């Protein structure tokens, strides 16, 4: 715990600024701030992502509180408050973190994290300021022994510099952590309620607006619930403008494996990235830049690259021209470099995924619900390590006649929009779900139908998105195929589960027929016809596919003639030993073996019956035969009956 201070200070040193505030003011839609409804979700999302990332980086079990309040007297204006128990931010860095776009420690490091571009929370600050003119309020404290600081910040959109409106020491309501309060224009959708959602003109996402198990996906509630599923170590409290409260409780105290930082792999570098890296590097010679800023690149290869690119190894990378950068890039791609290390990824893990789904949907495999997950081995696309995880939950509680609910994640963040354009959706639609026991009207190319939830998580140091707004994973062949493999692996488990369910159902149905319906039917018609009730054991054996053992006893004075009929209605060969005890002596056992004990005689026969085969056993005795017993075959696979009279 003593390390938090130093960690925060270390983080601060690495933070750098990139001035693009003005550009983003004009292009706020690419950051997820296009409609009022979406803007509110995005603001919450950015703040929560930040909180979770910060907690995980410092080994803290996240405790996040999200509150949304309506601002009195104003139309469509809300106050968003997100408070965490994270490491806090050192006083000097608070203005930079919140008041500058593209300012983040993560931008230049290659690691799986929620926020990858460092534009998130400051974009929310900017959006708030553009729509309400209000500054963002921040309280942060890095240690219980240190004071908390209160800031009111705005962003200078010309210079991308933070403007400090208020700055002072304050009383914090927590020993450590950060609290952000944004006042912004938005539209709140109570996603936990069933009903219609007003959609603003312009955005056309009606297909995704149906109310499902998760609630309305495109709502703050839907976002938080989705987040809770894949972050079972986090506790998230939510309070909405209507006073609705929900605690998404943690299901584990185990923190996810920390993602290790790696340097970029040359295979995935493009010219823009290379030039950016050269501009911001602290190395002064191109050779040491190559050696130190890339993964899997040694001194020798660096020299080789300089030679191929025909550049001076001692040149300062900041001074390289575009021309030279292009030559270096070409050279980088021409040399042989081994694949990037894969231990930099942090999967949710099969157990955690299952736990997350079970807790959020109250599922219990012991009560007939199905929850399974698969985490694939890491793989590489264009030099970027990635891995895919998939889970399926199937429960009678979910709607049966609707499309399965697909929940998509990239680096543990739910993807709420553009489901149709996402590689995850495409990979799932490509699968023939009928092979896995779900219906799929229209065949492949459609989502299956059934009471199921499919979860897919793509984790990577660099998730390829279809757009800047990071709403859908791009269709990269390597990723598509890994998604398909992961989903198929869980789907196979689902198929086994569904097949077993089907067998149980059929068995139950048959038992109902033979034990309840058929006896009533036979009784009724026998009575109507005034006839004796026939022995229905052959019919039961036929329905069940059992071995029939039907006895007939004829008495002639002292003498009993016993005929046992054996018939195999199963489609497999059956071998067993049949026993029948008789009170009194056996006169003629024919081919039965005799064993005498305490005045009882037990006869036994070894029987082998091919499918459909019928055999008869006959013997004579001076006593009444008892109910036959079989050995070597399960009891449920045998039907015992008797002709003429009640069963023995």
């Amino acid at each position, binding site marked *: 715990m003593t390390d938090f201070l130093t960690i925060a200070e270390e983080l601060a040193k690495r933070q750098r600024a990139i001035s693009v505030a003005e550009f983003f003011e004009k292009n706020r839609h690419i950051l997820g701030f296009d409609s009022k409804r979406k803007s509110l979700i995005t603001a919450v999302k950015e703040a929560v992502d930040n909180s979770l990332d910060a907690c995980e980086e410092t080994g803290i079990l996240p405790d996040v509180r999200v509150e949304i309040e309506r601002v009195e007297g104003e139309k469509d204006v809300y106050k968003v408050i997100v408070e965490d128990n994270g490491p806090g931010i050192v006083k000097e860095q608070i203005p930079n973190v919140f008041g500058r776009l593209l300012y983040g420690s993560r931008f230049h490091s290659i690691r799986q994290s929620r926020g990858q571009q460092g534009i998130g929370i400051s974009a929310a600050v900017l959006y708030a300021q553009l729509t309400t003119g209000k500054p963002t309020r921040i309280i942060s404290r890095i240690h219980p022994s240190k004071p908390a600081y209160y800031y009111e910040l705005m962003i200078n959109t010309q210079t991308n510099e933070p403007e400090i409106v208020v700055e002072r020491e304050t009383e914090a309501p927590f020993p450590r952590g950060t609290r952000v309060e944004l006042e912004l224009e938005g539209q709140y959708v109570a996603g936990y309620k069933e009903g219609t959602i007003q959609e603003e003109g312009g955005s056309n996402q009606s297909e995704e607006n149906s109310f499902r198990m998760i609630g309305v996906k495109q709502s703050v509630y839907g976002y938080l619930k989705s987040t809770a599923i894949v972050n079972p170590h986090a506790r998230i409290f939510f309070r909405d403008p209507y006073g609705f409260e929900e605690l998404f409780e943690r299901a584990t105290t185990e923190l996810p494996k920390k993602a290790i930082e790696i340097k970029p792999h040359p295979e995935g570098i493009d010219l823009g990235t290379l030039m950016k890296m050269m501009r911001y590097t602290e190395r002064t010679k191109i050779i040491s830049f190559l050696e130190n800023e890339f993964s899997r690149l040694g001194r020798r290869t660096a020299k080789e690259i300089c030679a191929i690119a025909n550049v001076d190894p001692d040149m300062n990378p900041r001074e390289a021209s575009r021309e030279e950068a292009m030559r270096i890039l070409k050279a980088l791609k021409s040399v042989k470099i081994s694949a990037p290390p894969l231990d930099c990824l942090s999967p949710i893990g099969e157990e955690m995924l299952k736990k997350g789904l079970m807790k959020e949907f109250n599922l219990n495999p012991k009560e007939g619900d199905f929850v399974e997950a698969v985490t694939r081995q890491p793989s590489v696309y264009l030099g970027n390590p990635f891995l895919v995880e998939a889970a399926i939950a199937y429960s009678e509680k979910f709607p049966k006649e609707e499309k399965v609910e697909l929940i998509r994640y990239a680096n543990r963040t739910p993807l709420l929009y553009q489901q149709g354009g996402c590689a995850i959706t495409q990979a799932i639609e490509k699968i023939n779900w009928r092979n896995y026991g779900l219906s799929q009207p229209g065949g492949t190319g459609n989502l299956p139908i059934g009471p199921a939830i499919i979860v897919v998580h793509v984790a990577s140091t660099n998730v390829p998105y279809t757009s800047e707004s990071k709403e859908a994973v791009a269709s990269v062949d390597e990723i598509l195929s890994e998604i398909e493999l992961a989903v198929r692996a869980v789907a196979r488990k689902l198929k086994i589960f569904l097949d077993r369910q089907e067998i149980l159902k059929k068995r139950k149905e048959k038992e109902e027929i033979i034990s309840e319906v058929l006896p009533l039917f036979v009784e009724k018609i*026998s009575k109507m016809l005034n006839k004796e009730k026939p022995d229905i054991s052959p019919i039961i054996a036929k*329905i069940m596919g059992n071995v029939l053992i039907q006895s007939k006893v004829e008495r002639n004075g002292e003498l009993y003639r016993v005929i046992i009929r054996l018939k195999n209605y199963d489609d497999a060969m059956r071998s067993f030993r049949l026993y029948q005890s008789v009170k009194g002596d056996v006169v003629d056992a024919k081919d039965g073996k005799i064993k005498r004990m305490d005045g009882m005689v037990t006869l036994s026969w070894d029987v082998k019956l091919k499918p459909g085969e019928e055999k008869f056993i006959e013997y004579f005795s001076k006593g009444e035969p008892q109910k036959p017993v079989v050995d070597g075959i399960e009891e449920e696979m045998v039907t015992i009956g008797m002709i003429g009279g009640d069963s023995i």
Partner: protein
Amino acid sequence: MTKSIINERDFKTLKILMNLVEDLYSQIVREEIPHIKIPTRTKLNIEFDEESEVWVYGDRLSERSAKRARGAYQLLKTAYVIDFLKYQLEENRSSTLRELYYISEGWGKAKFREQQESDRLIEDLEIITDVQREYFHITPEEDGANIFGPIRLRERLRSGDTREFHCIDDVGEKGYPIPSNVDNLEFIEHDAKMVIAIETGGMYARLIENNFYDEYDAILVHLKGQPARSTRRLIKRLNEELKLPVVVFTDGDPWSYRIYASVAYGSIKSAHLSEYMACPSAQFIGIRPVDIEKYKLPTDRLNDQDIKALESMKTDPRFDTEFWREQIELQLKMNKKAEQQALARYGLDYVTSVYLPERLTEMGII
């Protein structure tokens, strides 16, 4: 109480039913899983009978077998129903379809979940035994439609006497209510030249008020929506025995075309009775989709159900004629429907002074 002497017809019916039970019993004795085979009752299994010119069930059979829970329950319920019918026939009692449903309340596992199920089972029994439900002493509670026009009838009264009356002079303003067994009605004499079967009560009343029956010597029959069996049987008898042409006058929507189809060709649900009730020479007088355009009638847009019903008609063999294919396409294209009473936009007399005379002339009836 002395047991009433069972009449010959009831005795025959009982015998047929008990034979069915015997069959089931002997299946069990023969070690067969009990089952009943009956014709499949969907539009995929109705075919045109050249001889009688009506639609009847084809060769497709469905099996009700105790192999599956559904079939087992159906057999159990069948046994209970036959036992109840046995009681009715022996004691000379009768009940309505609805009463039968309520009686099953006391049958434990053989109880029906809804009346539709017991209604269907009675229909199944009609098909299997080739005996109509009236002979089981089961009557519908569907309240009979009415008839009004220049015809004299004789009916049998409950007391055993008979009564003769004229369907204009001796009846109220709504006409004579059609009884559930119209085979007991006798036609004495008439001055009619045609029968007009009308879907809605409003239009039926309009034609009476406007003296249409008098001016055109028409017998008016109110269908009351999808017509009851007795109504269809009566129309069939008027057509067959008195050689009167029949026209059907309904709203201009797919549901109404089905009403026409059930009068003319028989319904899918009771195709086993088509030969007894369908009136293949009945013609459709309107409202046709083409009339909606021709007479510029006030319309409503088709809703999803309407469109579905029209689409479904395309695969209904009863509507597989050039006329209907054209009309269905036209209606889907214009996306409109009209009620027969929409003709009132041109005044209350328009239907009787313009529309019907025009259409009847086109059809060669007047």
